[in-house]
């Protein structure tokens, strides 16, 4: 899994049936310093994550299908699997209560 931050949502009416009634969250990937790496992914929300929240992003198909109950053939790979409350890197707190510390 990777750490990311919810920055945008993708609004879509024409989509794979798999995404019906699901939110698509555009998330920046974060480095160990809590800053965006420049890469992003669009992940299916599975935890009701909100704007600006630091989240756990799972980018693996089988696990994603299992979480969404779309086995065996859901065309999905990235899912927001958790909301990060705290992230500590080498003893230093990088994320607390869902926010990246400056």
């Amino acid at each position, binding site marked *: 899994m990777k750490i990311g931050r919810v920055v945008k949502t993708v*609004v879509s*009416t*024409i989509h794979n049936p798999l995404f019906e009634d699901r939110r*698509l969250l555009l998330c920046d990937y974060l480095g160990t310093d809590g800053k965006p790496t420049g890469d992003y*992914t669009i992940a299916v929300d599975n935890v009701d994550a909100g704007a600006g929240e630091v989240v756990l992003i799972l980018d693996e*198909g089988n696990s994603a299908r299992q979480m969404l109950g779309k086995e065996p053939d859901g*065309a*999905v790979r990235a899912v927001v699997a958790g909301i990060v409350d705290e992230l500590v890197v080498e003893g230093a707190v990088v994320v607390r209560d869902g926010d990246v510390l400056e």
Partner: protein
Amino acid sequence: MQLGRVIGTVVATECYEGLEGVNFLLVEPLDKELQPAGEPVVAADGVHMAGPGEVVYFVASREAALACPETFVPVDHAIVGIADAVEDA
């Protein structure tokens, strides 16, 4: 999944068994500000409605084949939705 813009269509009369009827589109990857980011890829159109100029989102790797009618096919990128808007969460 990544954002992309459809910039062209690909016609392949001769293709692998199971890919008949699948539309292939040339998709330019986009960053989150919808600016071009990277080399275009040929993607299967998993929604059958995407067309040139549209902003779409696509899935890569093995999961792409799962967006096709026949799921055991050699496809590595597939469009799984058309983005109406990419807005602040």
